């Protein structure tokens, strides 16, 4: 501790005095006075409010304002003409399209389509050629799509996620205003439907290489089941088995696993050359080489995304 006199000589004191502006090096001591309180008379306030309302009335006077009327009329005519032209051109283009299943179209007669049709089963081990195509020939594409889902949830989190304390306070305020309204019909329906929906989603994910479906559709169904459960029993109940920690672990692990499997597949040679993952018997659940693990990864990713969107929109936290 220095005495006040000593302290006044230090540079720190001078610096802070300069910051505050109590002593100017050229002017000398400056006396700080608060500004006199400026009272606005009631009449002026009334006048200003009246002016504002008159201005607003003039601006929003749609019925008698001639400029607005003319603009609306022109806008509507142009919109209708534009729509008609667009529809006509689209219909004209459609009439030139080839028939569905026409063998002479480039899409049906190219080498790629032939290759998919003739040797997809041997090269990918999947009975369902669509899934085989998406997850082996074009696994890199699908990896990009999965990344898009990942980034989309992050963006929604950035814009909608509340802090833990703020979210809790909001929840309390909402509960105080209207107490939890549990719908018995919805709960009974959810009790019966949610297990079926979840099992169906898992079935579609696991059986993606044999029947229609795959990671995306199965994951969406799983997410829908989770949303139904959360809607019936509250997001807090869902938090017992699916909270932020589980969500983060699931999502990052799924994406990383997909990346690793894809890396392995491409470095070992695509199209099944020297591939160490066995294909199994086509048609069995454990078949299809890398399709099944990738399907599971994509399914988890999509289910997490769907549920996270809903929870963030509804409550602001997971």
């Amino acid at each position: 501790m220095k005495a006040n006199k000593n302290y006044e000589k230090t540079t720190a004191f001078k610096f802070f005095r300069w910051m505050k502006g109590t002593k100017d090096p050229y002017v000398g001591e400056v006396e700080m006075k608060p500004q006199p309180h400026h009272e606005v008379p009631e009449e002026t306030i009334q006048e200003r409010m009246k002016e504002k309302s008159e201005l607003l009335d003039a601006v929003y006077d749609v019925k008698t304002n001639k400029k607005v009327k003319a603009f609306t009329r022109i806008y509507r005519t142009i919109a209708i003409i534009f729509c008609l032209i667009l529809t006509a051109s689209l219909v004209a283009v459609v009439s030139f399209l080839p028939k569905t299943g026409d063998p002479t179209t480039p899409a049906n007669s190219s080498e790629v389509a032939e290759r998919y049709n003739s040797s997809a089963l041997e090269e990918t081990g999947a009975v369902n050629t669509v899934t085989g195509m998406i997850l082996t020939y074009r696994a890199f594409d699908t990896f990009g799509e999965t990344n898009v889902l990942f980034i989309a949830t992050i963006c929604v989190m950035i814009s909608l996620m509340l802090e833990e304390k703020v979210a809790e306070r909001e929840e309390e305020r909402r509960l105080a205003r209207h107490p939890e309204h549990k719908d018995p019909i919805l709960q009974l329906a959810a009790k019966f439907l949610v297990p079926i929906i979840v099992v169906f989603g898992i079935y579609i994910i696991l059986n993606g290489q044999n029947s229609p479906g795959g990671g995306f559709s199965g994951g969406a169904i799983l997410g829908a089941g989770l949303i139904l459960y959360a809607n019936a029993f509250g997001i807090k109940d869902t938090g017992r088995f699916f909270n932020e920690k589980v969500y983060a672990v699931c999502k990052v692990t799924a994406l990383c696993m997909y990346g690793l499997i894809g890396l392995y597949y491409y470095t070992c040679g695509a199209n099944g050359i020297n591939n160490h993952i066995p294909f199994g018997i086509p048609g069995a659940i454990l078949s299809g080489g890398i399709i099944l693990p990738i399907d599971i990864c994509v399914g988890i990713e999509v289910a997490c995304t769907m549920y996270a969107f809903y929870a963030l929109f509804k409550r602001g936290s997971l």
Partner: protein
Amino acid sequence: MKIFMIILFAVLIICAIIVTVTKNLLNSILVYMAFSLIMSIIWICLQSPDLAITEAAVGAGVTTVLFIATLKKIHAIQDDRREDENFDTEHEPELGDVQEEDTYEGK
């Protein structure tokens, strides 16, 4: 089969027009859900069941839920409990209400 497809397409177009024309946002969301459902049936008829499953789950299910959650968030759906007497309307302004009038306090 062809007649069935024509009926489906007609209903699809009607749904698309209704979605744009309806004034009530909730109605248009529900009609959009019907649109997605019909679309998924059309996908099955066009022999692409993979797309049909995704369309039914995402288009008709999840998107509708997200739309309704958003409408609830921006208070575009009228809440039935709003009519209760002890309902506190202070913090939940209705859509289109003027929030607070400027008072022009000179400071």
